[in-house]
């Protein structure tokens, strides 16, 4: 817990925001600040807002720092680092009393009278940077000033600078080190140590600072995914970047395709040939992939697709968040076939569920969709290093050369009790087959006969029986006996978990039911909760209450209240408390 010193400073509980024009390095500076905190054993959650453009526009990087686990950012901040006037105009009202602003007083005129209860720390960022003949150094200077204000260990920042810039040479490291120190000294020399917030190193093992997309990418690497074709689309693109940068470390082949249609076609082709393969996109790209989802379905070729949602329809809000693709994905493609949809709620779940997606895809020879969104994909959180011993590889039924040698009449689509027919791979003698997008017989030859059509449809759907046994029920957080239940799926996990802290502070007993397996929908837990006494609230980042409708369709039951948000912004923990309290 945060503790208070004699000087009444709040220690290790900070809500921090940096803002400025796009293209000015806000993202890297924010990340460095977060890593400085985690290197000192602290926890962070990082939330980024940016418009869909490269230069200009307004970017912010918000970091919540805590001694204990922090799940989400607050809608209030304590320290604002403003690289332009717009940042102050837009965000100064988010400052708590006693908060501070670091800004360049030579570029921005502020009248202290306009900011009562706020401490203003003017640092000549641009002049100090230009003195060093490099305008970009102003972010480094600002970071140094930050640490001084928070009375945090400058050495942590200097070691980060060294790690980041060492490949650019000693001169660059020195230039940045000097700049950080100059910013630090400027605050120490020109201001009293009167800022009310302080960060202190703790002895905890430093955690990773990782985004949902990076966790997904690591999940693919861990699962032995060897081929990743993809077309860039926000907010899924960083998966492609991360995997490409590391492809040779993992003997993975990463290909930028001409469109999303070819991305999924190639991934299916590679899986057919025996290679674990996946692709990633957002809703627009997924729309193009839809026909291939059906190809995976009828040919029974495993494939993993990541859909990182953003607000639609069409181009929508490219750099903002929404959870409005769920119903689309459940029914995407003509015809009916088995599929699985997984929706991780944080980086940890993103890693393990992505790795598991490959097992499910190969065991059942079906498409598996990992459903993320901008909030999960592009927010960074501190988390313990993933435990690789928990990752299992289960490739399902693939026949060896010896298996095939003893079976002279191999049938790719052999009718079996489980609905799963063992696969052969191109190149294997005695495994010749016809993997066919037309309805087919057991060999794979096209057929239009009624009897075989029914057999094959039933075979493909009979897999769902085993899948239903394997899917994981939603997890309950908070007080298991609470009479108030919040229900959510995917990325709303983080703001809802943070809101549980606020409910507790207000003496309201709340529990949270979080779905990560969405299709087929696990029914047991939700049926139980919706038939118990108490109030239930479902929270979704969409207009229609898509999971609420799905629950009603499957169980005939529905939560008492829908709390929905579809302005591209995530729920704020404070907002959750406020909106839920209206009904209790």
């Amino acid at each position, binding site marked *: 817990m945060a503790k208070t010193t004699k000087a009444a400073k709040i220690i290790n509980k900070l809500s921090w925001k940096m803002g400025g024009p796009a293209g000015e390095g806000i993202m890297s500076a924010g990340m460095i600040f977060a890593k400085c905190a985690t290197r000192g054993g602290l926890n962070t959650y990082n939330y980024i807002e940016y418009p869909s453009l490269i230069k200009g526009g307004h970017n912010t990087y918000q970091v919540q720092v805590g001694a204990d686990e922090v799940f989400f950012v607050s809608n209030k901040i304590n320290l604002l680092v403003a690289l332009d006037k717009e940042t102050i105009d837009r965000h100064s009202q988010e400052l708590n009393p006693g908060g501070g602003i670091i800004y360049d007083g030579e570029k921005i005129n502020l009248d202290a009278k306009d900011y009562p209860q706020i401490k203003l720390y003017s640092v000549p960022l641009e002049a100090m940077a230009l003195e060093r003949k490099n305008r970009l150094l102003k972010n480094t200077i600002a970071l140094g000033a930050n640490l001084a204000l928070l009375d945090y260990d400058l050495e942590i920042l200097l070691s980060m600078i060294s790690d980041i810039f060492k490949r650019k040479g000693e001169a660059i490291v020195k230039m940045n080190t000097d700049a950080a120190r100059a910013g630090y000294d400027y605050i120490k020399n020109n201001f009293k140590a009167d800022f009310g917030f302080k960060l202190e190193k703790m002895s905890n093992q430093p955690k990773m600072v990782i985004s949902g997309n990076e966790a997904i990418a690591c999940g693919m*690497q861990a699962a032995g995914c060897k081929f990743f074709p993809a077309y860039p689309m926000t907010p899924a693109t960083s998966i492609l970047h991360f995997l490409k940068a590391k492809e040779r470390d993992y003997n993975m082949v990463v290909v930028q395709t001409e469109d999303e249609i070819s991305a999924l076609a190639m991934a*299916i082709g590679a899986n057919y040939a025996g290679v674990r393969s996946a692709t990633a996109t957002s809703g627009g790209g997924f729309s193009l992939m839809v026909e291939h989802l059906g190809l995976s379905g009828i040919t029974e070729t495993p494939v993993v697709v990541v859909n990182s949602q953003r607000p639609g329809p069409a181009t929508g809000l490219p750099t903002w968040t929404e959870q409005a693709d769920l119903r689309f994905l459940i029914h995407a493609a003509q015809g009916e076939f088995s599929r699985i949809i997984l929706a991780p709620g944080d980086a940890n779940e993103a890693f393990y569920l992505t790795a598991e997606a490959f097992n499910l895809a190969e065991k059942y020879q079906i498409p598996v969709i990992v459903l993320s969104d901008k909030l999960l994909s592009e927010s960074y959180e501190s988390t313990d290093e993933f435990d690789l011993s928990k990752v299992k590889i289960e490739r399902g039924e693939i026949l060896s050369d010896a298996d095939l040698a003893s079976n002279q009449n191999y049938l790719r689509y052999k009718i079996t009790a489980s609905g799963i027919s063992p696969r052969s791979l191109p190149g294997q003698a005695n495994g010749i*087959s*016809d*993997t*066919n997008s037309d309805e087919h017989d057991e060999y794979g030859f*096209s057929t239009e006969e009624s009897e075989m059509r029914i057999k094959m449809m039933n075979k493909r759907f009979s897999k769902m029986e085993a899948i239903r046994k394997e899917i994981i029920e939603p997890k309950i957080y908070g007080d298991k006996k609470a009479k108030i239940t919040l229900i959510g799926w995917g990325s709303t996990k983080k703001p809802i978990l943070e809101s549980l802290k606020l409910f507790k502070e207000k003496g309201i007993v709340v529990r949270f039911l979080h779905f990560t397996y969405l299709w087929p929908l696990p029914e047991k837990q939700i049926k139980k909760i919706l038939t118990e006494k108490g109030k239930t609230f479902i929270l979704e980042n969409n207009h229609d209450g898509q999971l609420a409708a799905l629950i009603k369709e499957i169980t005939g039951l529905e939560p008492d209240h829908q709390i929905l948000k579809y302005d591209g912004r995530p729920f704020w923990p404070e907002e959750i408390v406020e909106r839920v309290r209206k009904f209790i």
Partner: protein
Amino acid sequence: MPTPKDFNTINKQTWCPGCGNFGTETALKGALAELGLNPEKVVFVFDIGCCGNGNNWYRGYVFHSLHGRSIPAAEGIKMANNAEHVIVIGGDGGLYAEGGNHFVHAVRRNIDITCIVSDNQIYGLTTGQASPTSDLGLKTKTSPEGVVEARLQPLSLTLAISEDTSFVARGFAGDAPHLQKIIVEAIKHKGFSLVDVLQPCVTFNYLNTYDWLRKRVYKLEDDKNYNPENKMLALEKSFEWPIGPNGEGKIPLGIFYKKDKKSFEDHFPQIQSVPLYKQEVKVPSLAASFKEFY
């Protein structure tokens, strides 16, 4: 040694009697036998259409994909297993219309697949609509007054996409022995190879018949001076096509252009010694990734 019959299945073709697909089938199966390839060493990726139905009549590893999407499926298969011969069989509708984008980029990549285009200049399986390679003025169900869009010249297109990609040829289904020679060279060629096959559609294309084609085709190799490594000459030849109401002019057949060039998969050291599908799937150390996050 494999024979062409080894590539036959138990099924009987359902193409119309006289369909150009028979000639292409004879030539392709003959070429595979001539190359000594066993059926398990070949993946046939079929597009959708009359030629695409060949999935039922070709024995080997067969992948029957979606309309226009056979090329990217084949590319994925090739990257997963670069020891395998990957052959795409599709029509002028699938590969030049619906899948035109994939065609363009496969040519750019110079990925080592062979595309055999059953080019009958019409849509057959959908019962007779104009295709990108239909001749101007051809009357079809979707062009009752005659096609007004310019004919796509597939060889010119391929040659124009990239300065030196990589194997461009045209054959005629009415001359299977000649077509077989071309296909043998196309499969042997390392890199992207296009074999556009003039294939009469005896049911829906009343214009580009066997007779019409026979009167116009000639072989490039009959001219001892023709050099298939001369790019500009190949481009010039690729534009040669009968025009006017009576289709005056000639149609060159043979290997228009051929150039040795590094193929796409050769740019990946990851797959130079062992194809991806043979590499063991196990949980690796993620140290190289995790170090980024501190």
